[in-house]
């Protein structure tokens, strides 16, 4: 490790101008409600996403209650059950995880981590949130209209989604489609902001390859989302037209309720192709930010540089690109031309290679590290367990032959909850605990956080591990109840009951989590500006929480990557990104 000594004045040219013109809010409303500060918008996004996510969590309790003790809770009838299934899935995937990772973490962390004053289009950013908020309201409204919300499953497959026989086939489905369309419009505004901020507003010295992996994950996920959401948008428009104008995009000649429908010549599989062309990248829209964030958490709390940074970046990019050519692995038994199976099974299993590499690099970052078992680190380790487990079952479902007996069973449900529900949620929790001192300037209650971790970690595993075996036995998904079969042992019901108990316990732990977050924001111990001794720029701000404009008078200048932990010859075990080489040197390095 050799540093060439420089005279700092020749090394860094002074910033020539005040970097970005910032909009300064004059009214209370402009500062806290229609705020154009990315940090405030981030908190608005996160709060809205978590609020609607809690609704989805409660819906999952209803599902679990019915599955564990069928027909004991009489307000859950078959139609209500399907509505709960649908709304739970759609809210969690789109309105919670997508919005939270990109709108929440993206807004908060991108400007801070790349060294910008704010997003490049603050006004558009503000509008983006309010459009998202409208989408959430439309979605919530569908609970209250006649016929209730849609119960077509989160995949919204036509023809059933818009035919009688499916709950919410009148107003519910239209509100859902409208809400999705609005969400996509809002997201596109936000997404443009994230991408352009990363491309154009990085501070001096912040080359792309010096960005923390968090930014890389959010960046690639945003690009995926920008390119994938149009498919959902198109299918939402087409399905709405089928309902409202009587077009036949997805509707073949069929019978409904005993008589012939007006449609002729549509193709239901076209919807499935469009949906999954969006739907598979959507998995990575949720997973890639989680990959990025967890890389940073592991590196910081193991006091070691992330192993194979460049490989990690390219793995994210390759996974993102490949995710557009694997969509039909959701459709092996959909009735599409079965010969597609050869192609899609191959592409799908190829994705496993860069993904596995990421896992190896996380693990190798722990190797020879100096592991502090802080709350964020614990959640990162939990992420690894869930992600490895879910990744392994992905190898079952990606391989057409192996997936056939398992598709449409609870095995699928267990798999995607492991890999894209629990694993990212572990990262969300870890990330919230990690950045909480920066966002609020205060510490959360450590004991409550540990309680939350252990219950969530062990509880979630007890929920989803046995669920795989229900699926292997052949229990189908989206079944209101499974009595009356001859091939299922009675003990299957006990498995269901135990899963439900675990799920309820995990659910209660989330209330402790929220309580801790809210109360500590006011009563917590004051936190220092860089409590984890981290290197990336958000920890180097003048004030904590960072003020409007993020940094002080001058934007920081970046000299190094974000992973200079335990650099040999340097006394401290970290060197912030904005410390010039000369200043980092000590007597040992010459």
């Amino acid at each position, binding site marked *: 490790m050799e540093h060439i000594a420089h005279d700092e004045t020749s090394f860094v040219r002074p910033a020539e101008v*005040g970097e970005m013109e910032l909009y300064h809010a004059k009214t209370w409303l402009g500062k806290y409600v229609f705020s154009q500060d990315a940090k405030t918008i981030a908190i608005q996004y996160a709060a809205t996403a978590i609020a609607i996510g809690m609704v989805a969590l409660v819906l999952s309790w209803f599902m679990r209650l019915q599955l564990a003790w069928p027909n004991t809770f009489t307000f859950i009838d078959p139609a209500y059950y399907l509505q709960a299934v649908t709304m739970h899935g759609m809210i969690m995937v789109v309105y919670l995880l997508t919005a939270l990772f990109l709108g929440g973490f993206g807004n908060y962390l991108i400007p801070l981590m790349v060294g910008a004053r704010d997003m*490049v289009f603050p006004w558009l950013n503000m509008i983006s949130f309010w459009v998202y908020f409208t989408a959430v309201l439309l979605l919530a409204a569908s609970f209250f209209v006649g016929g209730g919300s849609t119960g077509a499953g989160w995949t919204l497959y036509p023809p059933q989604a818009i035919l009688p026989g499916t709950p919410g086939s009148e107003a519910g489905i239209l509100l859902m489609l409208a809400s999705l369309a609005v969400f996509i419009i809002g997201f596109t505004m936000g997404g443009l902001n994230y991408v*352009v901020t990363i491309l*154009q507003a990085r501070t001096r010295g912040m080359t792309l390859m010096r960005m923390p992996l968090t930014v890389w994950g959010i960046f690639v996920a945003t690009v995926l989302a920008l390119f994938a959401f149009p498919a959902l948008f198109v299918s939402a428009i087409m399905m709405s037209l089928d309902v409202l*104008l009587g077009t036949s995009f997805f509707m073949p000649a069929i019978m409904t309720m005993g008589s012939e429908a007006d449609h002729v010549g549509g193709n239901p599989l076209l919807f499935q192709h469009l949906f999954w062309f969006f739907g598979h990248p959507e998995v990575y829209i949720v997973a890639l930010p989680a990959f990025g964030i967890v890389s940073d958490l592991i590196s910081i709390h193991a006091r070691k540089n992330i192993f194979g940074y460049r490989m990690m970046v390219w793995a994210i990019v390759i996974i993102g690109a490949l995710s557009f050519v694997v969509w039909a692995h959701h459709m092996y038994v959909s009735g599409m031309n079965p010969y597609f199976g050869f192609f899609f099974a191959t592409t799908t299993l190829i994705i496993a290679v860069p993904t596995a590499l990421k896992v190896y690099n996380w693990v190798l970052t722990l190797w020879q590290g100096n592991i502090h078992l802080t709350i964020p680190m614990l959640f990162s380790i939990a992420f690894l367990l869930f992600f490895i487990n879910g990744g392994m079952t992905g190898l079952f479902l990606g391989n057409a032959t192996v997936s056939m007996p398992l598709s449409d069973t609870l095995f699928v449900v267990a798999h995607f909850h492991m890999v894209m529900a629990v694993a990212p949620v572990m990262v969300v929790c870890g990330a919230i605990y990690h950045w909480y001192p920066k966002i609020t300037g205060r510490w959360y209650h450590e004991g409550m956080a540990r309680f939350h971790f252990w219950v969530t970690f062990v509880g979630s595993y007890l929920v989803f591990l046995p669920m795989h075996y229900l699926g292997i036995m052949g229990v189908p998904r989206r079944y209101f109840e499974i009595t009356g079969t001859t091939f299922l042992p009675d003990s299957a019901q006990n498995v269901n009951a135990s899963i439900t108990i675990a799920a309820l316990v995990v659910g209660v732990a989330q209330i402790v989590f929220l309580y801790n977050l809210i109360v500590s924001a006011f009563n917590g111990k004051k936190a220092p500006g860089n409590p984890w001794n981290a290197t990336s720029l958000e920890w180097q701000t003048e004030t904590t929480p960072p003020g409007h404009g993020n940094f002080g008078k001058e934007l920081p200048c970046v*000299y190094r990557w974000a*992973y200079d932990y335990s650099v040999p010859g340097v006394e401290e075990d970290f060197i912030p990104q904005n410390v010039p*080489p000369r200043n980092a040197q000590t007597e040992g390095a010459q």
Partner: protein
Amino acid sequence: MSNIFTEQPWIADTGPIAPALSGAEIAMHSRRSALKVLLSVVSIFFMLMIVAYGGRMLYQDWQPTPQISLLWANTGLLLLSSLCLQAALMWARADKVHWVRGALVGAGVLTVLFLAGQLTAWQQLTSMVLGDFSNPSVGFFFMITGIHGLHMAGGMVALVRAIRRAFGQSDARAMEHNVSNCALYWHYLLGVWLVVFGLLFTGNNFEILLRICGFI
């Protein structure tokens, strides 16, 4: 500049660091790259609709949309408005303020005429015998032309702002950035329209393409 493929990020900077950009420069670059990103999203959007159209075309019962000759005239209008913007850009670079203003207004008027023409085409189609919605190609026609029209209408918002700015100042070179963004958007949507119109709504061109590709 560092190379993203060869950079070894763990090596700290040893050379001078590029100076910071001014806020105005950042804003200018940002608008341009946001427009480019937006246009790639729009490309995906139209591509998906075209693919869906092609997929539906492979079925036996396919009936193409009836020909509407007005669409040719509309295409001409859109082409002219695109040319106007190109001219405006040239004149902005040559610092000819009055010419820029005229060309911008011309482009706006032509675009409004184009949209009116598209609406008339819709009316014509609705009144035709085959124009009922149960024919999938008609459904596609309304959807694709409608969405293209909405994009043009959205572009009008930016164009009107550019026009207001053009009349509010006398330095044509300061308008260049705005005008060139509008021009890019217009050229691009003209391109989209030519592809959509050429493939989908002027006879069975798309079917010929599918046949060449071996899908039928």
